[in-house]
């Protein structure tokens, strides 16, 4: 059953406003999605009724809070088909999840001569943490090339790059600039053949596609709540239990210790080991509600909706004079990036904003990819459950006016 997409808009009160005198058209979902009322209300209600610090408390509010927090962990384990909630570590977001793995797993496992394999389409958040740990350990970073025309991973080079020296292969599920959807099952299978540990950056897929870590077969998976109809400040590191329990702690503090002595300490197992200090339990609880919301629409239906909008946008935009569309011409996720020779992305964003349209222009935290594509910036329109065909028409109209003005 497909949801009634029109009614979905009513779940997001923020959409019901004017920006610069025009109805808001929010097309910046790859940066962050909006949040449905049930999630905002649920978070507020938690603070209004149940708030207390978790874990160490035995009074009623603390037990309610702990149940809310651990309930969210269970919910998320189920959402991605993890084997157990102990495989779910709460973090601030994708970036912190990747930093945790790079520092703890990478810091304890990597040595000079080892290879960290990334791809040319990675977000800065899946490059810089590896550069930092490569510098410390002497490991080398290599990149799977992206084909210049269609923005796909060059799988023929992959076989040459994926040698037994590769200790970790970290790649994105969906590119936030190209819209490419990577063949993650195949990539994990190939990595396994050479004994490489896999990490998937699911920031752009988690709220948009059906996703099961069991099916994918990855070792780690990282995502942010704020891109999946969730609030800011909460995200997840999924890791296989045996891997997590073999990793040293990253941050130290309350809640992650078994014993503390003036001379040294011992650690709890995962996930507590990696959750030092008071966790962001309220936002974690709210993330569970976001999972419920997404599943109430259905991830298969969302994926179809997004990709339908993306093809519509791709087709309509391709008619604009002088436009260069970036990424795959075929199947793509719910976003389209483009560039004009004579109109800069920032000028487009400023103009579109005057029409009430929220776009993003810039390098999208993909500087190395931009360089490879011979660009310094693109403009990106990215879609989610509340976007409509007529919003895409409005976008095309606005872009037409902008081109006329500048060219």
């Amino acid at each position, binding site marked *: 059953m497909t949801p009634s997409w029109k009614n979905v808009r009513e779940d997001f009160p923020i959409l019901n406003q004017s920006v610069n005198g025009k109805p808001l058209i929010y097309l910046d979902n790859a940066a962050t999605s909006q949040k449905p009322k049930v999630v905002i209300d649920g978070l507020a209600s938690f603070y209004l009724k149940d708030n207390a610090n978790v874990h160490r408390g035995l009074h009623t509010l603390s*037990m309610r809070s702990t149940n809310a927090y651990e309930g969210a962990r269970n919910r998320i384990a189920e959402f991605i088909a993890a084997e157990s909630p102990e495989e779910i570590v709460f973090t601030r977001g994708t970036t912190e999840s990747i930093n945790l793995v790079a520092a703890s797993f990478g810091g304890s496992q990597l040595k000079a001569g080892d290879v960290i394999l990334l791809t040319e389409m990675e977000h800065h958040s899946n490059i810089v943490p590896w550069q930092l740990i490569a510098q410390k350990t002497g490991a080398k970073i290599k990149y799977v090339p992206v084909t210049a025309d269609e923005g796909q991973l060059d799988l023929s080079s992959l076989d040459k790059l994926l040698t037994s020296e590769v200790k970790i292969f970290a790649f994105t599920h969906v590119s936030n600039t190209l819209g490419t959807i990577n063949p993650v099952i195949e990539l994990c299978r190939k990595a396994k053949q050479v004994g490489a540990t896999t990490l998937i950056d699911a920031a752009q897929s988690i709220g948009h596609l059906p996703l099961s870590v069991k099916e994918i077969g990855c070792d780690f998976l990282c995502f942010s709540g704020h891109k999946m109809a969730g609030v800011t400040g909460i995200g997840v590191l999924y890791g296989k239990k045996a891997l997590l329990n073999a990793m040293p702690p990253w941050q130290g503090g309350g809640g992650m*210790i078994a014993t503390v002595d003036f001379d040294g300490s011992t650690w709890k197992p995962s996930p507590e080991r990696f959750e030092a200090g008071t966790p962001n339990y309220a936002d974690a609880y709210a993330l569970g509600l976001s999972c419920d919301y997404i599943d109430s629409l259905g991830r298969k239906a969302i994926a179809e909706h997004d990709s339908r909008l993306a093809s519509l946008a791709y087709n309509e935009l391709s008619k604009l004079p002088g436009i260069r569309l970036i990424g795959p011409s075929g199947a793509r996720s719910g976003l389209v990036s483009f560039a004009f020779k004579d109109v800069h992305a920032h000028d487009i964003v400023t103009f579109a904003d005057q029409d009430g349209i929220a776009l993003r222009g810039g390098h999208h935290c993909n500087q190395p990819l931009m360089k490879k594509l011979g660009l310094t910036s693109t403009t990106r329109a990215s879609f989610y459950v509340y976007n409509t065909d007529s919003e895409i028409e409005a976008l095309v109209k606005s872009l037409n006016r902008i081109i006329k003005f500048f060219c």
Partner: protein
Amino acid sequence: MSSDLTELYQQVILDHNRRPRNRGKLPQANRVAQGDNPSCGDQCKVYLNVIDDRIADIAFEGSGCAISQASTSLMTTQLKGKTQAEAEALYKQFHEIVTTGKEPEEISDVAAFAGVHAFPARIKCATLGWHAALNALKNGATTATTESHKD
């Protein structure tokens, strides 16, 4: 006082808490295990003397709340003379009692722990000593913790 509380702190529990049985070291122990409840600081150490797969003697040391002290004390009285298989069966029964509140069919002191089920946060207090004892039986000597996600 609320009825939940009188259910939780039954006379049997208060008695075992005030006058713990088998408390102290066991010089002839051939199995020892530590039990820790990191979040709240409860600790216990269980000593076993196992002869021919039978618990010939058992003792414990430690500190903690009335529930953990009483349950560990009662546990020692229950396990003395039992085989590993019997001990595991008894723990299974005890776990059922503290998690569901269903009292066993035969009359037994462990029934006093049925009130724990209304206080889910205290279940790990009630099972700490048992975890340590079973760990000692199975592994010789390790540290048990009740802080895993599957209780």
